[in-house]
Protein backbone atom coordinates (compact mmCIF):
# COMPACT_ATOMS: atom_id res chain seq x y z
CA UNK A 1 0.00 0.00 0.00
CA UNK A 2 2.86 2.35 0.88
CA UNK A 3 4.42 1.62 -2.51
CA UNK A 4 1.14 2.47 -4.26
CA UNK A 5 0.78 5.73 -2.37
CA UNK A 6 4.45 6.68 -2.82
CA UNK A 7 4.28 5.99 -6.59
CA UNK A 8 1.05 7.94 -7.00
CA UNK A 9 2.46 10.80 -4.92
CA UNK A 10 5.71 10.87 -6.87
CA UNK A 11 4.02 10.83 -10.27
CA UNK A 12 1.65 13.58 -9.13
CA UNK A 13 4.26 15.81 -7.52
CA UNK A 14 7.28 15.37 -9.80
CA UNK A 15 6.76 16.80 -13.28
CA UNK A 16 7.28 14.19 -15.99
CA UNK A 17 8.66 16.86 -18.32
CA UNK A 18 10.58 19.95 -17.27
CA UNK A 19 11.73 22.05 -20.22
CA UNK A 20 14.84 24.14 -19.66
CA UNK A 21 14.15 27.84 -20.07
CA UNK A 22 16.76 30.34 -21.14
CA UNK A 23 15.82 33.71 -19.69
CA UNK A 24 14.26 35.82 -22.46
CA UNK A 25 16.13 38.96 -23.48
CA UNK A 26 13.38 41.38 -24.41
CA UNK A 27 13.52 45.13 -24.84
CA UNK A 28 10.63 47.54 -25.06
CA UNK A 29 10.28 49.29 -28.42
CA UNK A 30 9.91 53.10 -28.26
CA UNK A 31 6.65 53.00 -30.21
CA UNK A 32 5.17 50.04 -28.34
CA UNK A 33 5.67 46.32 -28.34
CA UNK A 34 8.43 44.06 -27.10
CA UNK A 35 11.47 43.30 -29.20
CA UNK A 36 13.36 40.01 -29.09
CA UNK A 37 16.31 39.11 -31.31
CA UNK A 38 17.42 35.69 -32.48
CA UNK A 39 20.14 34.57 -34.83
CA UNK A 40 21.49 31.47 -36.55
CA UNK A 41 25.23 31.17 -37.12
CA UNK A 42 25.92 29.91 -40.63
CA UNK A 43 26.97 27.22 -41.38
CA UNK A 44 27.18 25.78 -37.81
CA UNK A 45 23.49 26.06 -36.96
CA UNK A 46 22.10 24.90 -40.28
CA UNK A 47 20.32 21.57 -39.90
CA UNK A 48 19.01 21.26 -43.44
CA UNK A 49 18.96 22.91 -46.84
CA UNK A 50 16.53 21.23 -49.15
CA UNK A 51 16.16 22.43 -52.73
CA UNK A 52 16.09 20.96 -56.19
CA UNK A 53 19.40 20.59 -57.99
CA UNK A 54 21.60 21.77 -55.13
CA UNK A 55 25.22 20.66 -55.33
CA UNK A 56 26.05 20.83 -51.63
CA UNK A 57 23.04 19.68 -49.62
CA UNK A 58 22.96 19.87 -45.85
CA UNK A 59 23.30 17.28 -44.38
CA UNK A 60 25.63 15.93 -47.10
CA UNK A 61 23.64 12.69 -47.56
CA UNK A 62 20.28 14.46 -47.85
CA UNK A 63 18.16 13.26 -50.75
CA UNK A 64 15.69 15.95 -51.73
CA UNK A 65 12.65 14.42 -53.44
CA UNK A 66 12.85 14.61 -57.20
CA UNK A 67 9.30 15.90 -57.58
CA UNK A 68 8.37 18.58 -60.11
CA UNK A 69 5.93 20.04 -57.62
CA UNK A 70 8.84 20.96 -55.31
CA UNK A 71 11.11 22.33 -58.04
CA UNK A 72 10.67 25.93 -56.84
CA UNK A 73 10.69 25.19 -53.13
CA UNK A 74 13.69 25.74 -50.86
CA UNK A 75 13.40 24.74 -47.24
CA UNK A 76 16.01 25.39 -44.57
CA UNK A 77 16.08 24.40 -40.94
CA UNK A 78 18.27 26.01 -38.28
CA UNK A 79 19.00 26.04 -34.61
CA UNK A 80 18.31 29.54 -33.36
CA UNK A 81 20.15 31.42 -30.64
CA UNK A 82 19.34 34.30 -28.35
CA UNK A 83 21.49 37.39 -27.84
CA UNK A 84 23.71 35.48 -25.37
CA UNK A 85 24.48 33.08 -28.24
CA UNK A 86 22.70 30.20 -26.45
CA UNK A 87 20.62 27.84 -28.55
CA UNK A 88 16.96 28.35 -27.61
CA UNK A 89 14.99 26.76 -30.41
CA UNK A 90 14.60 25.47 -33.93
CA UNK A 91 13.45 27.49 -36.94
CA UNK A 92 12.28 26.69 -40.45
CA UNK A 93 12.47 29.03 -43.43
CA UNK A 94 10.72 28.16 -46.66
CA UNK A 95 10.98 30.13 -49.88
CA UNK A 96 8.79 29.11 -52.79
CA UNK A 97 7.55 30.43 -56.08
CA UNK A 98 4.04 29.48 -57.12
CA UNK A 99 3.17 31.05 -60.45
CA UNK A 100 3.62 34.79 -59.96
CA UNK A 101 3.45 34.54 -56.18
CA UNK A 102 6.61 34.47 -54.05
CA UNK A 103 6.29 32.94 -50.61
CA UNK A 104 8.79 33.32 -47.77
CA UNK A 105 7.67 31.91 -44.43
CA UNK A 106 9.37 31.39 -41.08
CA UNK A 107 8.37 29.18 -38.19
CA UNK A 108 10.24 29.67 -34.91
CA UNK A 109 9.81 26.95 -32.29
CA UNK A 110 10.99 27.62 -28.74
CA UNK A 111 10.24 24.41 -26.78
CA UNK A 112 9.61 26.03 -23.41
CA UNK A 113 7.53 28.89 -24.80
CA UNK A 114 5.70 28.10 -28.04
CA UNK A 115 5.96 28.79 -31.75
CA UNK A 116 5.56 31.73 -34.13
CA UNK A 117 4.52 31.68 -37.80
CA UNK A 118 5.64 34.63 -39.89
CA UNK A 119 4.77 35.52 -43.51
CA UNK A 120 7.60 37.65 -44.91
CA UNK A 121 7.24 40.22 -47.66
CA UNK A 122 9.17 38.72 -50.54
CA UNK A 123 10.58 42.09 -51.65
CA UNK A 124 13.57 43.11 -49.52
CA UNK A 125 13.86 46.63 -48.16
CA UNK A 126 16.81 48.93 -48.74
CA UNK A 127 19.72 47.48 -46.77
CA UNK A 128 18.77 43.91 -47.69
CA UNK A 129 16.39 43.11 -44.86
CA UNK A 130 12.88 41.75 -45.12
CA UNK A 131 9.93 42.34 -42.86
CA UNK A 132 7.00 40.05 -42.32
CA UNK A 133 3.85 39.84 -40.25
CA UNK A 134 3.42 37.44 -37.34
CA UNK A 135 0.48 35.47 -38.68
CA UNK A 136 -0.11 33.03 -35.80
CA UNK A 137 1.48 31.60 -32.70
CA UNK A 138 1.07 28.88 -30.14
CA UNK A 139 1.06 28.92 -26.32
CA UNK A 140 2.91 32.04 -25.10
CA UNK A 141 2.75 33.57 -28.57
CA UNK A 142 -0.90 32.73 -29.29
CA UNK A 143 -2.35 36.11 -28.21
CA UNK A 144 0.44 38.17 -29.80
CA UNK A 145 0.64 39.86 -33.15
CA UNK A 146 3.46 41.96 -34.56
CA UNK A 147 6.16 41.59 -37.13
CA UNK A 148 9.62 40.15 -37.67
CA UNK A 149 12.58 41.16 -39.77
CA UNK A 150 15.31 38.99 -41.26
CA UNK A 151 18.69 40.01 -42.57
CA UNK A 152 21.99 38.42 -43.47
CA UNK A 153 25.06 39.77 -41.67
CA UNK A 154 28.41 38.60 -43.03
CA UNK A 155 31.17 37.96 -40.50
CA UNK A 156 34.06 40.41 -40.70
CA UNK A 157 36.06 39.24 -37.68
CA UNK A 158 38.49 37.07 -39.73
CA UNK A 159 38.70 34.67 -36.77
CA UNK A 160 39.67 31.17 -37.83
CA UNK A 161 36.62 29.48 -36.33
CA UNK A 162 34.18 32.32 -36.94
CA UNK A 163 31.00 31.60 -38.88
CA UNK A 164 30.60 32.86 -42.43
CA UNK A 165 27.85 35.06 -41.13
CA UNK A 166 24.56 35.03 -39.36
CA UNK A 167 20.89 35.32 -40.12
CA UNK A 168 19.45 37.88 -37.74
CA UNK A 169 15.79 37.77 -36.83
CA UNK A 170 14.17 40.52 -34.83
CA UNK A 171 10.64 39.89 -33.61
CA UNK A 172 8.41 42.67 -32.34
CA UNK A 173 5.46 41.36 -30.34
CA UNK A 174 2.34 43.38 -29.74
CA UNK A 175 -0.18 42.06 -27.24
CA UNK A 176 -3.94 42.17 -27.60
CA UNK A 177 -5.69 45.17 -26.09
CA UNK A 178 -7.69 44.06 -23.09
CA UNK A 179 -10.72 46.08 -21.93
CA UNK A 180 -10.26 47.75 -18.56
CA UNK A 181 -12.27 46.60 -15.56
CA UNK A 182 -15.04 49.11 -14.67
CA UNK A 183 -13.21 50.01 -11.46
CA UNK A 184 -10.03 50.77 -13.42
CA UNK A 185 -11.97 52.91 -15.92
CA UNK A 186 -13.44 54.97 -13.07
CA UNK A 187 -10.00 55.84 -11.69
Amino acid at each position, binding site marked *: *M*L*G*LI*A*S*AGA*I*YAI*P*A*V*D*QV*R*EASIITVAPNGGNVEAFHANIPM*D*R*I*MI*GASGQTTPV*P*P*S*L*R*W*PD*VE*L*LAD*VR*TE*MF*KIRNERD*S*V*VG*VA*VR*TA*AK*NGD*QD*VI*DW*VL*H*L*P*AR*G*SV*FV*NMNAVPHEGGYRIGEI*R*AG*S*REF*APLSGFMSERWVADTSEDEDAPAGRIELQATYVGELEPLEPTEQAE
Partner: protein
Amino acid sequence: MKYIVALVLGLVAGAAIFAVGAVYNPFTVDRGLSPLSLTDAEVIALSFSTVPAENIIYTNNGESLQSPHPEKVLELWEVPIRKTSAMATVMRDARNQPAGIGIKISSKSESTRLLNGEAILDSVWYIYAPQHGSMFVRQTENYWPFIREVAFPAWKSSANNWRGTWLGDMTSGPGALGTASVSGGSGRIKGLEMVGIESMSVRAFSADTGFVSAEGRLLIELPELPDETEEESAL
Protein backbone atom coordinates in the same frame (compact mmCIF):
# COMPACT_ATOMS: atom_id res chain seq x y z
CA MET B 1 16.44 -6.60 9.05
CA LYS B 2 13.48 -8.66 7.90
CA TYR B 3 11.23 -5.62 8.40
CA ILE B 4 13.42 -3.53 6.10
CA VAL B 5 13.39 -6.27 3.46
CA ALA B 6 9.59 -6.53 3.78
CA LEU B 7 9.27 -2.73 3.48
CA VAL B 8 11.44 -2.58 0.36
CA LEU B 9 9.62 -5.53 -1.23
CA GLY B 10 6.31 -3.93 -0.35
CA LEU B 11 7.37 -0.62 -1.92
CA VAL B 12 8.53 -2.36 -5.10
CA ALA B 13 5.36 -4.47 -5.31
CA GLY B 14 3.19 -1.38 -4.70
CA ALA B 15 5.05 0.59 -7.36
CA ALA B 16 4.68 -2.31 -9.82
CA ILE B 17 0.93 -2.60 -9.12
CA PHE B 18 0.61 1.18 -9.55
CA ALA B 19 2.47 1.05 -12.89
CA VAL B 20 0.24 -1.75 -14.20
CA GLY B 21 -2.84 0.09 -12.94
CA ALA B 22 -1.73 3.28 -14.65
CA VAL B 23 -1.12 1.53 -17.98
CA TYR B 24 -4.42 -0.37 -17.92
CA ASN B 25 -6.43 2.41 -16.28
CA PRO B 26 -9.94 1.91 -17.71
CA PHE B 27 -10.78 5.59 -17.17
CA THR B 28 -8.23 6.76 -19.77
CA VAL B 29 -10.03 5.41 -22.81
CA ASP B 30 -9.83 6.75 -26.35
CA ARG B 31 -12.01 9.69 -27.30
CA GLY B 32 -13.47 7.58 -30.12
CA LEU B 33 -14.76 9.19 -33.28
CA SER B 34 -12.72 12.03 -34.77
CA PRO B 35 -14.67 15.30 -34.83
CA LEU B 36 -13.76 15.75 -38.51
CA SER B 37 -14.90 12.32 -39.64
CA LEU B 38 -18.51 13.47 -40.08
CA THR B 39 -17.87 16.89 -41.57
CA ASP B 40 -19.59 18.00 -44.76
CA ALA B 41 -17.02 20.72 -45.36
CA GLU B 42 -14.17 20.48 -47.85
CA VAL B 43 -11.21 18.70 -46.27
CA ILE B 44 -7.54 18.71 -47.21
CA ALA B 45 -6.18 15.21 -46.56
CA LEU B 46 -2.41 14.81 -46.39
CA SER B 47 -0.52 11.67 -45.48
CA PHE B 48 3.13 11.13 -44.59
CA SER B 49 5.46 8.44 -43.30
CA THR B 50 6.36 8.49 -39.61
CA VAL B 51 9.34 6.16 -40.11
CA PRO B 52 12.51 8.31 -39.83
CA ALA B 53 14.37 6.50 -42.62
CA GLU B 54 11.50 7.23 -45.03
CA ASN B 55 11.61 10.99 -44.34
CA ILE B 56 13.84 13.63 -45.88
CA ILE B 57 15.35 14.30 -42.48
CA TYR B 58 14.55 13.37 -38.92
CA THR B 59 16.59 14.62 -36.00
CA ASN B 60 16.47 14.61 -32.21
CA ASN B 61 19.02 14.57 -29.37
CA GLY B 62 20.66 11.43 -30.79
CA GLU B 63 19.95 9.40 -27.67
CA SER B 64 16.25 8.78 -28.15
CA LEU B 65 14.58 5.59 -29.35
CA GLN B 66 14.55 6.66 -32.99
CA SER B 67 17.87 7.43 -34.65
CA PRO B 68 18.35 10.64 -36.64
CA HIS B 69 18.28 10.31 -40.42
CA PRO B 70 20.23 10.72 -42.72
CA GLU B 71 23.77 10.31 -41.46
CA LYS B 72 25.54 13.41 -40.16
CA VAL B 73 22.37 15.38 -39.69
CA LEU B 74 22.85 17.95 -36.91
CA GLU B 75 21.47 16.63 -33.62
CA LEU B 76 19.45 18.73 -31.19
CA TRP B 77 21.71 18.11 -28.19
CA GLU B 78 21.66 21.57 -26.56
CA VAL B 79 19.78 21.56 -23.25
CA PRO B 80 16.83 23.82 -24.25
CA ILE B 81 16.10 21.69 -27.34
CA ARG B 82 17.04 18.22 -26.04
CA LYS B 83 13.39 17.20 -25.71
CA THR B 84 12.58 18.30 -29.24
CA SER B 85 12.51 16.42 -32.53
CA ALA B 86 12.21 17.77 -36.07
CA MET B 87 11.22 16.08 -39.28
CA ALA B 88 10.90 17.09 -42.93
CA THR B 89 8.80 14.88 -45.13
CA VAL B 90 6.89 14.71 -48.39
CA MET B 91 3.17 15.15 -47.87
CA ARG B 92 0.94 13.05 -50.12
CA ASP B 93 -2.62 13.69 -51.18
CA ALA B 94 -5.58 11.31 -51.05
CA ARG B 95 -4.41 9.69 -54.31
CA ASN B 96 -0.97 9.09 -52.73
CA GLN B 97 0.64 11.64 -55.07
CA PRO B 98 3.17 14.17 -53.71
CA ALA B 99 1.26 17.27 -52.63
CA GLY B 100 3.94 19.32 -50.88
CA ILE B 101 6.54 19.48 -48.19
CA GLY B 102 5.85 19.25 -44.46
CA ILE B 103 8.06 20.09 -41.50
CA LYS B 104 7.02 18.96 -38.06
CA ILE B 105 8.71 20.11 -34.84
CA SER B 106 7.61 18.45 -31.60
CA SER B 107 8.63 18.98 -27.99
CA LYS B 108 7.69 17.04 -24.89
CA SER B 109 5.12 19.09 -23.04
CA GLU B 110 5.12 20.19 -19.43
CA SER B 111 1.36 19.54 -19.45
CA THR B 112 2.06 15.79 -19.46
CA ARG B 113 0.08 14.09 -16.66
CA LEU B 114 0.75 10.37 -16.65
CA LEU B 115 -1.74 9.90 -13.81
CA ASN B 116 -4.49 11.17 -16.13
CA GLY B 117 -3.28 9.19 -19.13
CA GLU B 118 -1.78 12.23 -20.86
CA ALA B 119 1.64 11.90 -22.51
CA ILE B 120 1.59 15.23 -24.31
CA LEU B 121 3.71 16.65 -27.12
CA ASP B 122 3.48 20.30 -28.18
CA SER B 123 3.93 20.20 -31.92
CA VAL B 124 3.73 22.45 -34.93
CA TRP B 125 3.63 21.73 -38.64
CA TYR B 126 4.68 24.00 -41.43
CA ILE B 127 3.24 22.72 -44.69
CA TYR B 128 3.76 24.12 -48.16
CA ALA B 129 1.47 22.51 -50.72
CA PRO B 130 1.55 24.41 -54.03
CA GLN B 131 -2.08 23.51 -54.79
CA HIS B 132 -3.34 25.06 -51.53
CA GLY B 133 -0.58 27.36 -50.22
CA SER B 134 1.31 27.42 -46.94
CA MET B 135 -0.17 26.60 -43.57
CA PHE B 136 0.82 26.46 -39.92
CA VAL B 137 -0.68 23.78 -37.69
CA ARG B 138 -0.34 24.02 -33.92
CA GLN B 139 -1.52 21.26 -31.67
CA THR B 140 -1.04 19.19 -28.57
CA GLU B 141 -0.80 15.47 -29.16
CA ASN B 142 -1.54 12.75 -26.65
CA TYR B 143 0.64 9.67 -27.16
CA TRP B 144 -0.76 7.77 -24.14
CA PRO B 145 -3.14 5.51 -26.16
CA PHE B 146 -0.22 4.68 -28.48
CA ILE B 147 2.10 3.95 -25.55
CA ARG B 148 -0.51 1.77 -23.88
CA GLU B 149 -1.63 -0.18 -26.93
CA VAL B 150 1.54 -0.38 -29.04
CA ALA B 151 4.76 0.68 -27.29
CA PHE B 152 4.10 -1.12 -23.98
CA PRO B 153 3.08 -4.43 -25.64
CA ALA B 154 6.19 -4.15 -27.87
CA TRP B 155 8.38 -3.66 -24.79
CA LYS B 156 6.70 -6.63 -23.07
CA SER B 157 7.13 -8.98 -26.04
CA SER B 158 10.16 -11.27 -26.03
CA ALA B 159 11.14 -10.04 -29.52
CA ASN B 160 10.78 -6.39 -28.42
CA ASN B 161 8.40 -5.60 -31.24
CA TRP B 162 4.72 -5.25 -32.02
CA ARG B 163 2.81 -6.08 -35.18
CA GLY B 164 -0.83 -5.46 -35.89
CA THR B 165 -3.09 -2.61 -36.92
CA TRP B 166 -3.44 0.40 -34.67
CA LEU B 167 -5.19 3.57 -35.70
CA GLY B 168 -5.65 6.55 -33.43
CA ASP B 169 -6.09 10.30 -33.38
CA MET B 170 -3.01 11.94 -31.91
CA THR B 171 -4.34 15.52 -31.76
CA SER B 172 -5.86 16.41 -28.40
CA GLY B 173 -6.02 20.21 -28.59
CA PRO B 174 -5.97 23.15 -28.34
CA GLY B 175 -9.48 23.14 -29.89
CA ALA B 176 -12.40 22.39 -27.59
CA LEU B 177 -13.24 19.27 -29.61
CA GLY B 178 -9.64 18.08 -29.50
CA THR B 179 -8.72 19.67 -32.81
CA ALA B 180 -5.57 21.46 -33.96
CA SER B 181 -5.58 25.13 -34.98
CA VAL B 182 -4.53 25.75 -38.57
CA SER B 183 -3.64 29.15 -40.05
CA GLY B 184 -3.31 29.70 -43.79
CA GLY B 185 -0.32 31.79 -44.83
CA SER B 186 -0.45 31.96 -48.62
CA GLY B 187 -2.22 30.63 -51.69
CA ARG B 188 -5.94 29.91 -51.71
CA ILE B 189 -6.01 29.40 -47.93
CA LYS B 190 -4.27 32.70 -47.14
CA GLY B 191 -5.81 34.34 -44.10
CA LEU B 192 -8.07 31.39 -43.26
CA GLU B 193 -8.37 29.95 -39.76
CA MET B 194 -9.11 26.24 -39.87
CA VAL B 195 -9.15 23.16 -37.69
CA GLY B 196 -7.33 19.89 -38.20
CA ILE B 197 -6.70 16.45 -36.80
CA GLU B 198 -3.55 14.35 -37.00
CA SER B 199 -3.96 10.60 -36.82
CA MET B 200 -1.53 7.73 -37.04
CA SER B 201 -1.78 4.21 -38.38
CA VAL B 202 0.86 1.78 -37.10
CA ARG B 203 1.49 -1.70 -38.47
CA ALA B 204 4.88 -2.51 -36.90
CA PHE B 205 6.81 -0.98 -33.99
CA SER B 206 10.07 -1.98 -32.35
CA ALA B 207 10.86 -1.19 -28.72
CA ASP B 208 14.54 -0.93 -29.81
CA THR B 209 14.35 1.25 -32.92
CA GLY B 210 10.89 2.84 -32.97
CA PHE B 211 8.50 2.90 -35.93
CA VAL B 212 9.03 0.15 -38.49
CA SER B 213 5.87 0.59 -40.54
CA ALA B 214 3.60 3.52 -39.80
CA GLU B 215 1.85 6.34 -41.55
CA GLY B 216 0.46 9.65 -40.35
CA ARG B 217 -2.47 11.58 -41.72
CA LEU B 218 -3.52 15.19 -41.39
CA LEU B 219 -7.09 16.22 -42.07
CA ILE B 220 -7.68 19.94 -42.37
CA GLU B 221 -11.23 21.23 -42.58
CA LEU B 222 -11.69 24.32 -44.71
CA PRO B 223 -14.27 26.87 -43.67
CA GLU B 224 -17.10 27.43 -46.11
CA LEU B 225 -15.71 29.81 -48.69
CA PRO B 226 -18.05 32.36 -50.30
CA ASP B 227 -19.07 31.22 -53.75
CA GLU B 228 -17.52 33.64 -56.26
CA THR B 229 -20.40 33.25 -58.73
CA GLU B 230 -22.93 34.06 -56.00
CA GLU B 231 -20.91 37.12 -55.03
CA GLU B 232 -20.75 38.29 -58.62
CA SER B 233 -24.48 37.82 -59.19
CA ALA B 234 -25.21 39.79 -56.01
CA LEU B 235 -23.28 42.77 -57.32
